[in-house]
């Protein structure tokens, strides 16, 4: 009886489907506004504004240069350039990961009162960190290259490739963390420790080639390693990255994205209902 009735009104579609039909393209403006919101909130009302987000990485670079270059006397020439190529990108990743844990659960009222693709929330936290990172490297990297009198060279064009792959990888991580945090608040604490371990496991402050052979697999197991190595290849060593390196970067990016999308899409209904 009911099916007969429904056929009379064939021009109806599922409400949740109708909502997602309009999805991504329509909601570009929302992504933009969320990123703008976070940027404005961060810098509005502070005297030095954007300079603050330069200060943090620069101080880190200063401290590590002092510790490794002068105290431990690591023999890496142009150590500042080496450090900058990896450390800033690490900051972009770590910042995105920490922020994404709250991406959905801290937007309760938004999620409960209107439909929009929920994935926009973790996505925009990554894009916010990306835009901060881009602003930072736009100033810092030319400065450091000039400092070490490095002329432009062809392998530098690989930098955006690795940045794009790292961004995909980070988006996957953000989806995963946003989902996990909704079910387990401990994820935030795990992440703090995990990031510490990952930082030292990744060849950011030391050169990969100085790592003993036996430990190298462990270093490669850090999913950040291929991206950091990629940046170092293009900016510091200025050599073309090996195919294996690119392949590894692609594999980590795709795997992370698939896992993140799977978890997020699978549990998004459930955790938005529980906010």
């Amino acid at each position, binding site marked *: 009886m009911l099916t007969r009735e*429904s056929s009379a009104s064939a*021009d*109806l*579609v599922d409400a949740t489907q109708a909502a*997602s039909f309009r999805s991504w393209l329509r909601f570009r403006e929302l992504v*933009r506004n969320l990123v703008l919101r976070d940027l*404005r909130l961060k810098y509005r009302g502070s005297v030095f504004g954007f300079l603050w987000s330069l200060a943090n990485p620069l101080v880190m670079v200063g401290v590590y240069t002092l510790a490794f270059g002068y105290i431990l006397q690591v023999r890496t020439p142009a150590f500042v350039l080496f450090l900058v190529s990896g450390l800033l990108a690490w900051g972009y990743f770590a910042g995105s990961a920490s922020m994404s844990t709250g991406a959905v659960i801290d937007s309760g009222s938004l999620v*409960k009162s*209107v439909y929009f693709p929920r994935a926009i929330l973790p996505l925009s936290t990554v894009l916010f960190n990306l835009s901060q990172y881009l602003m930072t490297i736009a100033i810092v990297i030319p400065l450091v290259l000039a400092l070490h009198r490095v002329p432009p060279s062809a392998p530098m064009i690989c930098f955006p490739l690795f940045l794009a792959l790292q961004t995909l990888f980070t988006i996957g991580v953000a989806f995963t963390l946003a989902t996990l945090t909704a079910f387990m608040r401990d994820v935030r604490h795990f992440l703090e420790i995990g990031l510490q371990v990952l930082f030292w496991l990744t060849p950011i402050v030391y050169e990969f080639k100085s790592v003993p052979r036996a430990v190298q697999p462990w270093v490669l197991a850090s999913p950040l390693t291929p991206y950091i190595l990629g940046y170092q290849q293009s900016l510091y060593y200025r050599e073309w990255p090996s195919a294996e390196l690119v392949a590894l970067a692609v594999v980590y990016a795709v795997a992370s994205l698939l896992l993140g999308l799977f978890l997020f899409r699978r549990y998004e209904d459930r955790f938005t209902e529980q906010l």
Partner: protein
Amino acid sequence: MPVVIEAAQLSKRFILRHNPAGSVKERFLGLLHREKREIREEFWALRDVSLRIDRGEAVGLIGSNGSGKSTLLKLIAGIHRPTSGQMRIARGAHVGTMIELGIGFHPELSGRENVFLSASVHGLSREEIEAIYDDIVAYSGLEQFIDQPLKNYSSGMQMRLGFSISAHLRPDILLLDEIFAVGDADFQQRCMRTMRQFQDQQKTIVFVSHSPDAIRAICRRACLLDRGELRFDGSVDAAFDAYDRVRLARQGLPAPPPDLSPRPSAQPAAAPSRPAGWHRDAAGGLWEEVGQRQFAFLREQGLAPEDYVLDIGCGACRGGAHLIGWLKPGHYYGVEARPELVQAAIEHELVPLGIDPGAAHFIINGHFVFGETPQFDLALAQELFPQLTLNDVLRCTAAVLRTLKPGGRFFASFYDNAEGQYVDAIVHPGGGTSYADRPPFHYPFAVLEAALGAIGAKVRRLGAWGHPRGLAMLEITASERVGTR
């Protein structure tokens, strides 16, 4: 008109988590301590709701808190996914939600930035927002403040901005939740005007509100939800009537006796704000009609001004309004479990009618304990038995018979199960519905006759007496066996 919203056997289940294991530690503790274990409870916010709404219709959703109104809105909006059944809307229809005003607002951002943010949350593109931006600002009347951070706005100004955004989203289907509960009279009028404009443009409106006035002003059709079930779908007045009955049934007289002693340390309790006339609704609606009918009935039964009358469940003075002035002063005794109902009735009915409330005695009690009273010629329990279990019917009758004069009569209305067999639900002439297992109850006359007979009451069935919802009347008198205890 084409159908734009169709719910087919729609159900929505939520899992409520008690002691939610938000952290690993709690999860671990749960393994060791039973009482710390997470308890999951199913909660069906909606059950098997089927409903269709045509384009251009304005439908009110009513029901008490937790009845599923907001859940239904969220399912239409696509915020929630149905657990079973289907929720379908017209292809390409743009659904606008006004479930909360100022969605996405951030206090640190300026009015302008918030307009763009909030409108984009609703899925508008930049061009679309730019096209309506000037109208939004003009309609809100906040031109001078639009570049100020929102935190400098008063809550009224924030609301105006939020509403102005919502009003300009131009959805095809507009879902509103209780926004009339906030804001001053001016704001509410503005809301109503906007709603009417939407209606003139053939937009579909689904409107959740507790305010009968607000619903009446906009809707011709209303749906009553009760514990997730669609209990009524039809005209607004009939829906509120059904709502009254559901609420009465929930309150389930008799209630525990209220604590009337003054609380020394507590703040003076602020009077809960209630819409005018709520006491009439609380007494079951049809206030005037039923009041007149029962007064006429008692006089047909030979009521005289010098008689002493006991009115049980006198509530909103439906009968009192007629009886108190007509009987000799001091001869009317009203019993009611809810003091606030009596208070409201005195204030809004008796005083305006020029009836001296001092001429009546009001006994606030929900346990049929009447205290010191004279012996009554006549007792009345109108629409009370349908709210009582059989045990309480007996308790009530026993208490009443003890206070009656020899030869005194007790009139009680009830829903008659004329078939005499077990029937789940009966629809009576006039549209009242009664149930075997929940209030309003119906009883076979034979059951009442036998049960009341067992405690020494003689019951006569007077049958229909012109009650608008089809309640039948009983005359109960004491047989010789009623003790003097």
